[in-house]
């Protein structure tokens, strides 16, 4: 069945009609043209589909589109590229398939200093599987992003 849902997408009101079985990931990619979030595993293990839902990082492959009714969804497309420089310079990206998800989480951490202070950075990043970098570039890039945004 199809239903109409209203929600906030990247800070603006959005309204779509969706099949109730549609995942948030597929809504973003196939209906709304926001292809930064990617399907890496369909089981919430790799983090490549990470977006923010009501201000928290989630795997969009495990959320139904209808569940974002009345909620705020933020995707990597809304992020300012200037905030990605530290990740770039640290070698956080190689093939790029995990990168939008990683960038999403890193920026979120940088925006929440209380979280960054309460939990180990690697603990917060463990939901992103990367096969290319060995993670040093990602963790270092995350650290530098947090530092830069504290200032």
């Amino acid at each position, binding site marked *: 069945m199809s239903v109409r849902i209203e929600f906030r997408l990247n800070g603006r009101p959005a309204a779509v009609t969706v099949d109730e*079985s549609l995942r948030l990931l597929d809504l973003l990619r196939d209906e709304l043209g926001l292809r930064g979030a990617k399907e890496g595993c*369909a089981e*919430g*293990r790799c983090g490549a589909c990470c977006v923010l839902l009501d201000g*928290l990082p989630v*795997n969009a492959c495990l*959320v139904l589109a209808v*569940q974002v009714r009345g909620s705020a969804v933020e995707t990597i497309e809304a992020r300012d590229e200037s905030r990605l420089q530290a990740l770039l310079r640290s070698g956080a990206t190689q093939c790029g398939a995990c990168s939008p998800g990683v960038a999403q989480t890193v920026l979120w951490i940088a925006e929440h200093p209380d979280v960054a202070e309460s939990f180990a950075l690697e*603990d917060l990043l*463990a939901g992103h599987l990367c096969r290319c970098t060995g993670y040093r570039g990602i963790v270092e890039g995350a650290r530098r992003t947090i530092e830069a945004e504290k200032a």
Partner: protein
Amino acid sequence: MRVLTPASFDEACAMRAEIPDAVPLAGGTDLLVDWPTRFEAHDRTYIDLSKLPALRRIEWREDELVIGAGVTLWDVRRDAAIERELPLLPRAAARMAALQIQTRATWVGNVVTGSALADGAAVLLAHEARIALAGGESGAESIPLRDFYGDADRILQSKRALVRAIRVPRRRYSVAIFEKVGLRAANTRSDLNLTALESEGRWRIVVGGLTPRAIRCGNLESRIESRRSVDSPDDLLAAVRRDAGSGSEPDRSDASRETYAYRERALARILTTALSETVPWIRGNLRSGRA
């Protein structure tokens, strides 16, 4: 497929009563796995509980902590009071999957699935939690988790009820251990997990990974409470075996016996070494004995 969106928990209970086949959906971190190819799941009716603020309450009562059905693993990790008083809850949550799952997965969901991947259920079992039901013919009801866990579907179906909350007794524990062995250091399901709590001489030990679902290990507890000395992990194996019964794996026939044997030995060793730090009659000496 239909997704019903109740405006309140009462309305959700009414929906559940009216449509017995309706599946409660909260975090979705279990129900939505491999969603695109699970066609049979697309033909069902779901009740979306994820937008009910009343369910996301964490409430401290005099003798118990009440965790609403919408409270996530991350909510508990962020709660300083829970960290102070019931530290195994955030400790277990921290080791379940990763951040993006923890922000969605609920404690109630973890318990209801009865899945082998449910570490949260194991920890709650050790705390002797109770399940608060609502709706259905019996109305509000409180059941010990140990009677609910593993039988959740049948109980909820037969009562046409929903889980409203989990009630965790407030106790001062002098020993609180949570250990987990997974496939890697983070973002992993359990191969083996151990929760051990001691309060006023009484032990509560729950093990996940030896059997298809986590089990309370009454024989291990008695063995330790007996104060008979434990000189090596071997000394605990008999009790472990009685608790685990035949020790069957859910699947994978050939590997299962070896895997079970490995896990029971690893468990005995972890428990012995962890307890030897605080329990005088337990010596964590791995060098003696075969285990």
